């Protein structure tokens, strides 16, 4: 159990309170849903199991053992029998480590007296999620990336997986640049089995690119949960007086501007971006979770879980 885990440095990502709360939440959730212990979720992925799902036409390369000979006998056509695979949930947490995630902001929630940047918030969130998954005997994996994939841990449900994931999270550093769209495509390609993809990101890339990447996930039959992280300042742009804005991703030059002059345009732009992403998520049946970093992450997580069940 998590309580017996050695007090490693990476364990900071899973503060005691949070772990305690999460185990109760799990109980809560379980009490709510009566279901088989093995596999709390009906996987949308079709696999080879006992419960028949459907037929599909034979394609060269398919395993011959799955041919439905009886259909062949009746219809003289090759069909492959497909079964619903009842598995544990295979979840992959995808954490955006781009430069923009470094943004902290004055109004962000704090932990141990330190204000959390979006990245740190994401770290804690990812850790909590991973812990929760493993506790539920689901498989969990982790992908961190900035302009490319920095670490890739395949989903597994063994208890040591939490340690692996936490270690990787602990070592992750916010990088420079993000090409969120392209990296997500790569992630989509590399996640081997269909499962749940939990993306924690501020989505600071062109909405079209991101939506394309989501389509890619969907195409690979992944279920998407997007934790959209935003700092309060990014949503209200409360600055006054002359400011010089320095790009955290180091892409664009510094910008000196009177914030008041651009506030409305900026907010309009942000609103548009958010609604683009949100509506795309709606179309893809993805779970869109807006997270303002001013809200403590465990609260937000608890709310999310409460909603999801």
């Amino acid at each position, binding site marked *: 159990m998590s309580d017996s885990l050695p007090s490693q440095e990476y364990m900071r990502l899973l503060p005691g*309170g*949070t772990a*305690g*709360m999460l185990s*109760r*939440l799990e109980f*809560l959730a379980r009490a709510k849903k009566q279901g088989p212990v093995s596999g709390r979720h009906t996987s949308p992925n079709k696999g080879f199991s006992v419960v028949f799902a459907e037929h599909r036409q034979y394609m060269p390369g398919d395993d011959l053992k799955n041919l439905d000979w009886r259909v062949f006998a009746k219809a003289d056509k090759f069909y492959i029998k497909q079964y619903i695979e009842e598995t544990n949930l295979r979840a992959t947490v995808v954490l955006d480590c781009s*430069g*923009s*995630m*470094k*943004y902290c902001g004055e109004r962000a929630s704090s932990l141990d007296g330190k204000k959390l940047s*979006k990245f740190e918030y994401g770290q804690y969130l990812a850790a909590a999620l991973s812990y929760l998954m493993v506790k539920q005997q689901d498989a969990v994996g982790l992908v961190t990336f900035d302009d490319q994939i920095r670490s890739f841990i395949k989903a597994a449900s063994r208890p040591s997986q939490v340690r692996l994931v936490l270690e990787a999270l602990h070592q992750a550093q916010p990088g420079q640049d993000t090409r969120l769209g392209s990296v997500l495509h790569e992630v989509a390609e590399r996640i081997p089995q269909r499962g749940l993809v939990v993306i924690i990101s*501020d989505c*600071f*890339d062109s909405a079209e690119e991101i939506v394309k990447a989501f389509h890619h996930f969907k195409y690979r039959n992944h279920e998407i949960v997007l934790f959209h992280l*935003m*700092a309060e300042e*990014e*949503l*209200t742009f409360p*600055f006054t*007086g*002359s*400011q*010089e*804005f*320095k*790009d*955290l*991703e180091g*892409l*664009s030059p*510094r*910008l*000196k*501007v*009177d914030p008041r*002059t*651009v*506030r*409305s*345009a*900026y*907010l*309009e*732009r*942000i609103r548009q*971006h*958010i609604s683009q992403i949100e509506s795309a998520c709606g179309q893809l049946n993805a779970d869109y*979770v*807006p997270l*303002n970093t001013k809200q*403590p992450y*465990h609260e937000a997580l*608890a*709310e999310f879980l*409460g*909603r999801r*069940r």
Partner: protein
Amino acid sequence: MNLALLGGLAAIAIPIILHLLNRRTAKVLDWGAMRFLLESVESRKKRIQLEEALLLAARCLLVGLLALAVARPFVPPGSSVPWVVVLPAFLIALVSLTTALVLRGNRKWFWTLLGLAALLAVGSAAAVYYERQLNLKRFGTGGGKDIALIIDTSSSMQLTSGNSPGTVFAAAVAEAREIVDKAPAGSSFSLMMGGPVPVARLAEPVVNRLDVTEALNALQPGRGRMAAFDALAAAAVSLARGTNPAKEIIVLTDGQNIGWETDNKARWDALVAGLETLPAPPQVILRKFALPATFRNAALSEIRYSREVIGLDRPVSIEVTVENTGTEAITPGGVDLLIEGETLKDMTLGQLPPGARQTVRFLHQFKKPGSVIVEAKLSVTDDLPLDNTTASVCQVVERLGVLIIDGNPSGPFLERAGAFTALALAPASALQAGREPQKDRAKDQAGVALDPEVIPLSRAASVESFAAYEVVILCDVPKLADSTARRLAAWVHTGGGLLVAPGRQALPEFYNNWRDAAGQPFLPARLLSERISRDPAGLALPGFTHPALAMVADPRQSDLGGALFTRWWRLEPGDGGGSATGARLGNGDAFLTGRKAGFGSVLMTCVNLDASGSNLPSRQAFVPMVHQLVYHLANPSGQPFNQAPARQLNLPLTSGMAEGGLRGEYFKGRQLSGPVLVRIDGKTEFQWGNHSPGPGVPEDFSARWTGMILPGYSEEYVFDGWGDDSLSLFINDQLVFERGGDGKVRLEAGKAYPIRMEFFDRSGGASLQLSWRSPSQPRGIIPASALTPFSPEAEETELGMGRWDVTGPDGRLLQAELKFTRGGLVARLGGDIVPGLYRMNVPQASAPQFSRLVNDDGTIPFTVTDDASESRLKPLGATELKVLRERLKLVEPQSAAEVVAALTGQQFGEELWKYLAAGALFLLLAEIALSRWIALSRRSGEPEAVNFENRREPSAQFKEQLKRVQETAGV
């Protein structure tokens, strides 16, 4: 320009520096959502930049304008740079340059603004080049000025100054030309000649410099002093006619102190108040040409006569004063006096030290009555020849008509009230035992100037006209008939002299209620009560202040001190205007009071001049005293043909003539237009027969008489008349009768009704007659006393009677206008009046009418007197300059260049700074409005906060449980 201006313009940098500093001090903020920020900046960039540029430009311009306004810049004298173009171009270019600097991010705007600045620079350069090439001064320095040039034309300007070859006058004119040439473009000039009477050469400000230069070139040096104050006043008047807001007065003078009237506070107050009413009180630029430190000059001052009235009876002593006004001792050669064709020489002059005076006396017996020219010449070589000659015109009278109205004509001669007076005036004629002096006696005895006529009071009412006399004396008259009193008052108003000597019969109620036509008390004093004293009172000779008594006031020459009075009237000086007490008795009671009444004057003594109440007639000084009083009364205005310079000279051609009558206009033919003769006619009865009614009037003529009729009773009058050939009468503009006949009109006493008579005669004998009658008066010709050519409302109504040519000194040609005034016929002369001798050409036809005045050559001579102090060359002193500086915005430049600098120096400071300040104010408001608008537009575009909330709320049950969990977990 002053340095503050440059410092001020540097202040334009302040908004820019603020702007840049504002950017530099920006807080650095690490920002994640740069992509969106950049996009939104991109979309707003143009508008933001425009707003910022506008604000910045407005602020720069505001600061620049304020700096300029405070710096009160002026254009360098004689600048050929068209500042009105260059300065705004410079400002705008500066602002566009700075704005371009701010907008350097925006290529398009940057280059556009740079191009604009360059264009403005090129334009300014082109304007400068154009201006240099053509030297038009067309652009000017922003608004011209109205400049009044006063050039001193006084005699002393004809001195040669130390450092220039010509006269000071020539130097002044040359400098005036230079000033006109270099004055700011758009200026307009008026030009005054600062003589004894300032004459406007250009009364209205003229813009065309050629005209001004021409007028300057035509200026001739004048004579006499400069009436500097009057010249300033005239300049102020001409400036008021100008259209430019900025005004300047330039006085080019040698800086003599006369004529500035610095003691006359009231006049200066009025002038300063007048100047204050101009849009901008003018600066007075006083350019003084130095008076020579040493000069040689002897001057003749005016000619004086020993008697006020000059007759043919005795030789007259003529005095001429010679004064050395120079700085060196001088020995004049002598004085020549030219009189009636004779030359009297005087060689008694010795050496005169500076400032000394010597009086030269000539004795001359005048031979003929009339206007006699007396000219004095000083033989001397000095710096200022103008004052070496002087002239005077004296009126030599043959007889002086004096009418003595005797209130006590019965009894022995010496007991008659007027006896001693008549004796005193004409001893020879009056000594004809007990008989009245004969009127025609004067004709027998040539050379007797005084011609007294004594009539008893009873005949006073029948005196047809007092115009035949110069002086009337009332001796112990108890009272006069109302009509006589009224006529006498009217006669005094038109120039007569009246001496009232009330005796024991005098009735105070008459004297105290004697009023003139205007209803004012006529006499100078009121009779309080007659005082009979046992203790006789003497005369207080030191109290004899009246000018007529100056001769008898000297106790060494006069025995009047021994006069004793036992009864006299106590006089209370009246409250009528101008009453003064001229002599007193020993106990302080008034002895002689006097006042001017109209053109004449009235004297009143407290006793009758006889032996009944005093021993006055027994004094030896009695005769000269009476003579002096009569002379004074006969000649109330002094020497009317030797007048001080004035804007308007009125030369009396008749005296005491305008008692009544109508204005008659005579025309050729029957057209009542274009009169050939205008004159005043008395009674309404004419018998011309076959003679012409007047010079220039043909046999076939028509005439029109106009004026007012003054009825004596309020009742219905019947007018009847006839004319050969025809007479028509209009009263109150109503036809009474036409071509002879009669008519009735109701009139009221004391009111004046317009009357008009029209007459024509085709040929043959011409005559007319107009009579009136009423229940209270018998039929009779309307007398002159009931007619007047003046309307009663218009006190100053004057009738033009034609023009005569006048030749003045230095060949000046002038015209005198004949005016019929209440004071009689006068020749009115205006314009360029300088001291010297003038001759008025009387047309031959009119000469007989004025034979008393006209000389053998058909002219009436007169002089305008000079001011002797002009020759003394006293410069304006410190106290006078102090007064001027207090009253005026005085600038005292030392050269033409400094005058121009003073003219242009105030240019912007005086006029432009207001516009600059107004512009700055406008910009300030615009800046406030703009920034407000920008702030508002930004605020109004403020969107609601971005909705970043989770739409799907967890169930209430879950939330509750969660809360519990959180509590127990202690998170």
